[in-house]
C-alpha cells in the first residue's frame, strides 16, 4: 500500500515534543470526525426506510465508531486515557468538521445519504494522504480502515443514483446539497499545526490539495445526477470553523447527550470489550 518501509518511519519513542503535538492534532481530527459522524448516523438506526437499509446504515455507523476507536487508541499510546479523549474533553477542544455535527431533519434520508457520500470521499482522500505517513503506528492502521470505507462509498453512490432518479427525490437531494455544502467545506479547513503535520510527513498532502481532489471527485459525480453543485468560493460560510474548536450549537447539545450517563455513573474506568482469543 505504501512506498516507505516501516524501518524508515518514526516510532513512538522517536517523536520530538514538537512532532508529538502535531501528530496529536492530526489524530484528534481523524478520530473526532469519525466519532461524531458515527454518533449522528446512529440516529438513523431503527428509523431507516426499510429493514435492510436500517442494517446497512447502522453497520456503517458502527464501522465509523470502530475507526474512531483505532485513532483514539493511537492517542492512548501517546499517553491519553479514554476519558481524556472523549468523556471529559471540553467540547470546545473537539476538532471535527462542521459537516458531521449537523442534526438530521425528520425523515431526511437525502441528508443521511449525501452527507455519507461527501464525508466518505473526503475520508478516502485523507486516508490515502496518510497511507504513506512517517509515523509507523498510523501507517499500520490505514489499510484496515480503507477496506471498510469502500463499502460506505458504494452504499452512498448507489443510494444517490436511485434517489435522484425521480423528481421528488432529486429535489430533496438538491436541498440537502445546498444545506450541507458550506459545512462540508469545513472538512478542509486547516486546523492547528497544519504546516508541521505536512512538514514532519505525518500526512503527505496539505489540506488545500485534498480539497481540490475532493471537489474534482464530488462535483462531476453530483452533476452527472442532474444536481447543481454550489460554487465553493461563493457559498456563504458559517462563522464556525470546526477544526479550530468552534462549533455550531447542535454540537453542544449532542455532546451533553452522549456524555451525560458517563458523568452520572462516575465509574473508575470506561469498560473495554476487546479480543480475548487470538
Amino acid at each position, binding site marked *: 500500500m505504501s512506498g516507505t518501509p516501516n524501518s524508515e518511519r518514526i516510532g513512538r519513542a522517536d517523536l520530538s515534543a514538537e512532532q508529538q503535538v502535531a501528530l496529536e492534532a492530526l489524530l484528534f481530527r481523524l478520530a473526532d470526525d469519525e466519532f461524531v459522524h458515527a454518533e449522528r448516523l446512529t440516529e438513523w438506526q431503527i*428509523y431507516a426506510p426499510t429493514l435492510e437499509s436500517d442494517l446497512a446504515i447502522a453497520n456503517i455507523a458502527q464501522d465509523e465508531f470502530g475507526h474512531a476507536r483505532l485513532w483514539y487508541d493511537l492517542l492512548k499510546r501517546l499517553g491519553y486515557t479514554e476519558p481524556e479523549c472523549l468523556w471529559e474533553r471540553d467540547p470546545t477542544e473537539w476538532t471535527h468538521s462542521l459537516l458531521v455535527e449537523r442534526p438530521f431533519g425528520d425523515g431526511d434520508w437525502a441528508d443521511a445519504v449525501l452527507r455519507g457520500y461527501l464525508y466518505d470521499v473526503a475520508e478516502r482522500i485523507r486516508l490515502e494522504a496518510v497511507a504513506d505517513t512517517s509515523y509507523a503506528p498510523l501507517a499500520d492502521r490505514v489499510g484496515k480502515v480503507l477496506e471498510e470505507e469502500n463499502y460506505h462509498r458504494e452504499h452512498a453512490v448507489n443510494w444517490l443514483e436511485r434517489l435522484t432518479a425521480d423528481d421528488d427525490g432529486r429535489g430533496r437531494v438538491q436541498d440537502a446539497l445546498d444545506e450541507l455544502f458550506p459545512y462540508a467545506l469545513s472538512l478542509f479547513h486547516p486546523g492547528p499545526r497544519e504546516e508541521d503535520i505536512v512538514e514532519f510527513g505525518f500526512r503527505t498532502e496539505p489540506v488545500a490539495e485534498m480539497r481540490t481532489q475532493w471537489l474534482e471527485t464530488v462535483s462531476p459525480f453530483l452533476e452527472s445526477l442532474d444536481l447543481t453543485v454550489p460554487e465553493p468560493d461563493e457559498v456563504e460560510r458559517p462563522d464556525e470553523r470546526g477544526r479550530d474548536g468552534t462549533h455550531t450549537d447542535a454540537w453542544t447539545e449532542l455532546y451533553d447527550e452522549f456524555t451525560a450517563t458517563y458523568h*452520572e455513573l462516575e*465509574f473508575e474506568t470506561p469498560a473495554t470489550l476487546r479480543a480475548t482469543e487470538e
Partner: protein
Amino acid sequence: MDLETVRKRAGPREFGPADDMPERYRTAATRMIQFHANSEVMGGYLDKTFTRKAPSLDRKLANTAKVQDEIGHAQLLYRAAETLGVKTRAEMLEELANGDGKFLNCFHYPVDSWYEAPMIDFFVDGGAMRRQATLKSTSWTPYAHAMDKICFEEGFHVKHGESILRELMNGSKATQERTQETFDEWWPRILQFFGPTNDESVHDDFGRAVGLKTVTNDELRNSFLNMYIPKAEKHGLEIPEYPRIYERDDGTMAVREDDLDWDEFRTISRNEYEGSHEQIGSRRRRQEAVDWVRKSLDSWESSAGTTPRAAD
C-alpha cells in the same frame, strides 16, 4: 391437509411452504411469527436509546451491534411469516405503524436511563432466549430456520446485558440503589413477559396441538425464574417481596400470579396503554417520515432500474 392430519403429524420442522396447510394453522402461525417480528422492531425502539447513553466507547459499539442483530431478526421473522401466505411484510409493517400490530408487553414501556439497559438486555432478552430456544422445534420450518440464526446471535446480547448489570452493581452506592429501583420497576413486567397462566391463554392450546409451540408459558416462566433469580441475587439485586415467589414441591420456583397486574397487561395487549400510544406513535411518525424513500425505491424498481426477469 385437514386439521386432524396436522395434529397427527405435528412435530419439529414438520411443515413448510410446499404443504397445503389449513386456514386455522396458517392464521395461528402468522399471528405468532408476526408478533415475534414486531417485538424485534419495537424492542429496537428501546435499545436504540442506549447507544447514545453508553458510558464507554466499547459499550456504544456493542449496543449498536446488538440493535443491528435485532433488526436482522425482524427481517428474518417477517420473511418466515410471509411464507404462510396470509400477509405480506408491507402489510404487517403497516399494521404495526397503525396500532393493529401486537408485540411484547415489555416494549410498551419507554426507557430513558442507562439503568434500564440490563433490564432489557439481560432479563428480557434472557427470557426471550429461553422461549426462542424452544422454537427451534416449531412445526413451521421457515420459523425454525429463522430461529437457528437468531439463537446463534443472542448469546452475545445476554452476556452483554449481564456485563452491564455487573458493572452497575459494582458501582457507587447511589448507582446500585438506582439499579435496584429500576429492577423493582421492571421485575413484574419481566414476569409477565411469558403471558398469563396457561388456562387463560387463548391461543396456547391450539399452538401446542399443531406443534407451533412446544413448551407452555408456565414452564418457560418457571425455568426462567430458576435461572435468573440466582443471577440477579449474585449481582446483589434483591428480589422484590411482591409478586411473591415460592418454591414448589420439586424445588423449582414459581410466581403467585394473582400478585401481578393483569389489567395493565391486558390493556397493553390491546395496545391501549399510555406507553403503547407513545411507542406506536413513535414508530408511525418515523415510518411516515421516510415514506418518500420507499416510494422512490418502488418507482426505481418498476422502471428500468432492475434487470429484466428471466422469461418462464
